[in-house]
């Protein structure tokens, strides 16, 4: 089951352009089971685009994507994937919905295999909220929570469906520093203890790097993809630490 080399996402030769403007050029990478991959790169480097291609929201003009070794075009086991988009907390502020309802709506509508765990929805919601430390807020309305709490609810929603991989696009934007640290510790714990595979787009490489084992460094093209430890010894990392985004932000 936990075959370490099992490929969960495979991206091969993917290029993508928005109305003729190139955003990604010839990207190939793979995510293995148990990986904690950080995707880094300057603004506009195509990180969000890459994530959207991985979860099937965008179709690449060239190249192919496999999820759990199945071609994306025919993949249908979406319950195995959790995705939290950039600025996910920018939802409609007048939308009347409680924390529990946010999670229930997703739990009740995601198709699960007959073999899946059949715990009652109520229990699953509570467990997911406990994981993110929000069990007391279940009945509160979503728009009465702080931005950081809302972000946690969305993580709980993604976890409740028991995905095998979680893809997060800059999940801590607008969250204060201590909460960011807690949040990344939580991701690290999920990765270590529950063997959840994680793909994280982030600008806070300094905070996450102790949890991460793989790094992808992106700017239209893939500049580095490999082990975090090797990345730390590479020139690119030194550039990054010196605040010199210029090397990886150089446009072609």
């Amino acid at each position, binding site marked *: 089951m936990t075959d370490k080399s099992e490929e969960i996402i495979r991206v091969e030769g993917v290029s993508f352009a928005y109305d003729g403007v190139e955003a990604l050029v010839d990207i190939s990478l793979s995510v293995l089971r148990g990986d904690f991959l950080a995707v880094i790169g300057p603004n506009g480097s195509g990180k969000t685009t890459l994530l959207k291609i991985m979860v099937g929201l965008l179709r690449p003009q060239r190249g192919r994507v496999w999820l759990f070794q199945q071609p994306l075009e025919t993949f249908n086991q979406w319950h195995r994937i959790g995705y939290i988009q950039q600025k*996910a907390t920018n939802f409609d502020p007048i939308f*009347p919905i409680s924390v529990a309802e946010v999670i229930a709506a997703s739990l009740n*509508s995601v198709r699960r295999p007959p073999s899946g765990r059949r715990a009652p929805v109520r229990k699953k919601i509570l467990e997911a909220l406990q994981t993110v430390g929000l069990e007391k807020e279940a009945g509160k*309305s979503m728009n009465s929570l702080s931005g950081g709490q809302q972000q946690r609810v969305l993580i709980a929603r993604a976890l409740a469906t028991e995905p095998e991989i979680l893809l997060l696009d800059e999940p801590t934007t607008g969250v204060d520093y201590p909460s960011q640290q807690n949040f990344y510790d939580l991701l690290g714990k999920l990765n270590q203890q529950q063997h959840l595979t994680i793909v994280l787009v982030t600008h806070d490489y300094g905070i996450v790097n102790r949890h991460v084992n793989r790094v992808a460094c992106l700017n239209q093209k893939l500049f580095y993809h490999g082990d975090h430890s090797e990345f730390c010894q590479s020139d690119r990392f030194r550039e990054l630490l010196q605040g010199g985004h210029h090397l990886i932000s150089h446009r072609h």
Partner: protein
Amino acid sequence: MSGDLILSSLFLRGLLAGGCLALACGLLGVFLVLRRDAMISHGLSHVAFAGVALGLALNLMPVIFSIAVCLLGSLLIIRLKEQARLPGDTALALLSSAGLALAVLLMSLKKDFGAELMSYLFGDILAIGPSEIYLAAGLAVLVSAGISLNLSRLIFMMFDREAASVSGLGLKKLDRLLVMMSAVTIVLGLRIVGLLLVTGLTVIPAASALQLARNFRQTLFFSCLFSLLSILGGISLAYVFNLPASAAIIFLALVIFALAYLLKRRY
């Protein structure tokens, strides 16, 4: 048979049909308002009006015919939105003027049904025939079932479309379901409160519910409750004081909105 009995059975019929309409409008209104689609009922009501005119001109059952036309119109709206690079409200404006133009044209060609068509402008609850009660009940059941069977998916889609899409939900199907249910409800609304007020009926109770509700379940409950109070209360007021029912219904809905708004300000 005494005149009283006939009148009261007309009154009862009105209440029955009105109750069915209230349920459908109360449920759907919440979705339309939260999707910023409130004007979809405005656009569709004009298409439905053209449908009635066509039905009358062709000597077919106008309500049934109008449902068919309105369903087609609703699919056209979705298509324009998806493919013609039109903002939703422009697509609606396009279709509603097309509908009204068609109705006006038909009326000028065949003058003899003008009076009957007018009853769809302001609605005519006391003209509801016995067979239309069954139609109203059928439509109410259809809309309630369509919403309750898909409730979680609809909430998920409206709250977070992107995540819902990644969860493998068929968003386009759900969009179509909502707009087709709106089409059906609006034809029924046209019969009861008329073209000019049907938008208010689908939108005001939901807007009032949003003032008070803390979660989605409550919003649906309050919206249906306010819709029922407005329609049943409005019909009763109209019957007792001999007022136009459609106006009484909308005024009652507005009074409820004002109260809900004030209550929210107080607490």
